[in-house]
């Protein structure tokens, strides 16, 4: 533990970690409460040889990120609810064209312009299904500044390795909160698979034998190929409906599905003998942890669990964690979104209850404790 000690915001940690992960291109359109990410990168990225561009809007930012990634750059954008809505079309393009990219969405109260400076967790379903059609996506949600640092690096690694868009779903609390963190000395950095065949033989969407991920050539390296939002053959050229189209859709979705087990990251405390488990994510997990510890201290058999990966949802892991519980309570700053997935995972296993707050304030440990005591009485 001899790394550098810093006191920083979640947004700053995201920017720092992105550079550490190898970010070399950022395009964005600043929006509260994500602005500090763009602000930090406007200052820091050019100093390390990268490019920062403030685009005319969020749609163009997402397009620029895709273009940059196709040239081999690790690329990212950052936004909040209204901007995240605008980026959806191009997120779908990145999913189908298998272009690695990291999209940060710092959640604020919506819909629409909403409450621009107030926290929420209302974009859980949008992060999964915001763009149309079946598509692969990975969504990560941190609870602390240090976890923001770690998950940002992981987001790049997953995105590069699987060639999928990865959404880093922050909330206003974690994004603006400042905490002490020790910057890890060693981090593992991954890069996208690159082709070993010469340009003349390269098929841009043909996975290598035994793999489901095609090697990706960088534009400008002599590999000429076609990239499209239409369904395409292994050569990259458009195709019509039929078996090949189905094969492509199944392959890109299974890139994530087949790796569900390695995309599990949970934190669990006092769940072995718990009759009730408080399950949460993001900033709300901090209140859930406090509440569970307070209740344990008073002799209640209450456990705490949180997930850092929202999608794919860790259903299997949660079933094991909650094996002995009669109730799982899911506090979240929305009208009940991730709780739907918890219900699906624990169907017939135990009772699942939602605890919602949508007034733009963080859920407090007190109110979770009161709800738990109501359930246990």
């Amino acid at each position: 533990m001899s790394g550098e000690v810093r006191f920083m915001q979640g947004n700053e940690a995201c920017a720092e970690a992105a550079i550490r992960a190898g970010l070399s291109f950022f395009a964005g359109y600043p929006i509260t409460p994500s602005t500090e990410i763009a602000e930090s990168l406007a200052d820091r990225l050019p100093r390390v040889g990268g490019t920062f561009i403030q685009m005319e809007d969020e749609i163009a930012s997402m397009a620029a990120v895709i273009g940059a990634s196709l040239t081999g750059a690790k690329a990212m954008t950052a936004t909040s609810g209204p901007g995240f809505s605008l980026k959806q079309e191009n997120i779908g393009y990145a999913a189908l064209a298998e272009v690695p990219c990291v999209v940060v969405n710092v959640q604020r109260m919506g819909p629409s312009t909403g409450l621009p400076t107030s926290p929420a967790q209302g974009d859980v379903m949008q992060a999964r299904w915001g763009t149309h059609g079946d598509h692969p996506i990975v969504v990560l949600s941190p609870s602390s500044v240090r976890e923001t640092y770690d998950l940002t690096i992981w987001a790049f690694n997953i995105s590069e390795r699987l060639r999928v868009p990865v959404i880093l779903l922050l909330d206003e609390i974690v994004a603006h909160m400042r905490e002490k963190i020790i910057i890890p000395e060693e981090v593992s950095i991954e890069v996208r698979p690159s082709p070993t065949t010469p340009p003349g033989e390269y098929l841009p969407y043909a996975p290598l034998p035994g793999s489901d991920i095609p090697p990706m050539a960088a534009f400008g390296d002599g590999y000429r190929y076609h990239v499209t939002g239409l369904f395409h053959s292994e050569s990259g050229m458009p195709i019509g409906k039929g078996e090949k189209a189905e094969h492509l859709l199944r392959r890109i979705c299974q890139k994530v599905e087949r790796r569900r087990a390695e995309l599990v990251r949970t934190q669990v405390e006092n769940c072995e003998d718990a009759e009730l488990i408080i399950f949460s994510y993001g900033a709300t997990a901090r209140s859930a942890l406090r509440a569970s510890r307070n209740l344990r201290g008073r002799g209640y058999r209450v456990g705490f669990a949180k997930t850092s990966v929202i999608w794919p949802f860790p259903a299997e892991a949660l079933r094991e964690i909650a094996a002995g519980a009669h109730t799982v309570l899911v506090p979240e700053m929305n009208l009940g979104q991730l709780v739907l997935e918890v219900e699906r995972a624990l169907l017939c296993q135990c009772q699942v209850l939602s605890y919602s707050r949508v007034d733009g304030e963080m859920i407090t440990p007190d109110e979770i404790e009161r709800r738990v005591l109501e359930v246990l009485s």
Partner: protein
Amino acid sequence: MSYWQIRLAGEGGQGLILAGIILAEAAAIHEGKNAVQTQSYGPESRGGASKSEVIISDDEIDYPKVTVPDVLLVMTQVACDKYAKDIARGGVLIVDAGLVKRLPDIDAKVVASPITETAIACSGKAIVANIVALGLLVELTGVVSPGACEKAVLARVPPGTEQLNKKALEAGYALAKHAVPCQREGGR
């Protein structure tokens, strides 16, 4: 005391979010403790309610917000009226005497000091009122050492303003020495 809850409240433009950051950094970086700073503010860059909260602890901090402040600094009447009731029994309420005229009847030590006036007197600028307030708060409560506070101030303020801010901080420390509690003593 190993768990401090501190709330700084006023309006946008008074620099209270920065004051909170500096206080937290004094504890986290210069005294090796854990600290979390959060904030709440409106869409305006000046005016509108602004609140900065700091928790300082020897242990891990999970819930990051302040619920019952041990120390409450208020720089507007609105903030005083809104938050004074939250204060811990025997806590410390610090008000800018020039901006807050009606004091609450609470079970806490209430200190009314001319914070903004002192900032103008020592530097000609109201903009350093946040640093004067920080000095006053640190000297009154001992939540961090004056040395750690000074290091944190100098590390955060814009280059070229170090002397100005140091003067403001010292004016805050001096203000504490002359501060007389306005009401009955609280619990500590």
